[in-house]
């Protein structure tokens, strides 16, 4: 089956440091699972992607027994098929979308709380640093969840962390459902931006 995998620069596995063979004229060489059970090659279905963001995004082919675990696929072996070249250059678009969704959620929560003035202040367009300062000052006046806007802006150089903070902001406002919705929107961003479909 085909799935996706984030790797560190140079097609390196971000945690184990394993170097994945690059696809040559055909497909890359296979990376085999280690002998221990459940220690296979890890990959993602679409909804897993936001949890594992790194610098390179690849289409991978998986073989052997493929099992679905919490937020990842584990397969007997896998190989790189093709790189999604537009990532990470589209990183700023992704973090920008995370910031915008967080700001929208927070503004809606402020309006629901009757804090129309703060909502208007946070809605006014300004540069990220000014927006961060605005969010911090509103948070200090009471609605601490507004601080998440500042957190998400501060983490924008790190898309994995930015996405995580956006999900936490959504959880603070909308509980687990909010979290799951934000993560789903992040996955939908990858799907739409890079035309990713279901693994097959």
């Amino acid at each position, binding site marked *: 089956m085909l799935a996706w995998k984030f790797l560190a620069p140079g097609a390196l596995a971000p945690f184990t440091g394993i170097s994945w063979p690059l696809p040559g004229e055909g497909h890359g060489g296979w990376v085999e699972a280690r002998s221990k059970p459940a220690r296979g090659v890890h990959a993602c279905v679409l909804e897993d992607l936001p949890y594992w963001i790194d610098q390179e995004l690849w289409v991978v082919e998986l073989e052997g027994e493929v099992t679905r675990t919490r937020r990842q696929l584990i397969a007997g072996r896998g190989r790189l098929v093709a790189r999604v070249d537009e990532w990470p250059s589209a990183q700023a678009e992704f973090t920008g979308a995370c910031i915008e969704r967080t700001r929208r959620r927070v503004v809606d929560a402020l309006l629901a709380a009757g804090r129309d003035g703060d909502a208007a202040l946070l809605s006014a367009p300004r540069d990220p640093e000014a927006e961060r300062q605005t969010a911090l000052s509103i948070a200090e006046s009471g609605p601490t969840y507004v601080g998440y806007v500042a957190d998400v802006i501060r983490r924008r150089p790190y898309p*994995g962390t930015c996405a995580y903070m956006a999900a936490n902001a959504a959880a*603070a406002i909308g509980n687990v459902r909010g979290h799951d919705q934000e993560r789903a929107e992040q996955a939908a961003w990858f799907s739409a931006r890079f035309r990713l479909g279901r693994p097959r």
Partner: protein
Amino acid sequence: MSRALPADLVCIVAVERVTEYLDDVLPLRERTEFEEHLVTCPGCVIYLRQVRAQIAASAELGRPRPPPEEVTQKLLDMFRASRGG
């Protein structure tokens, strides 16, 4: 701020798990939690790299390293001299 989600792994726990992670003895769920934490925590990634580098450097120390040729020669000369040439 109240949390609506189960508590995520915090750095202090992640740091405690680094050795087990590198020894590959963490159960799958904890291993996944640990790796998820790494995605969101550049500081813990650096720590993991440091521990990995330290282990690699320690392994180097364990390897026998013969003294340089000139040192060996000097010792042999001294030994021979002590035995009267």
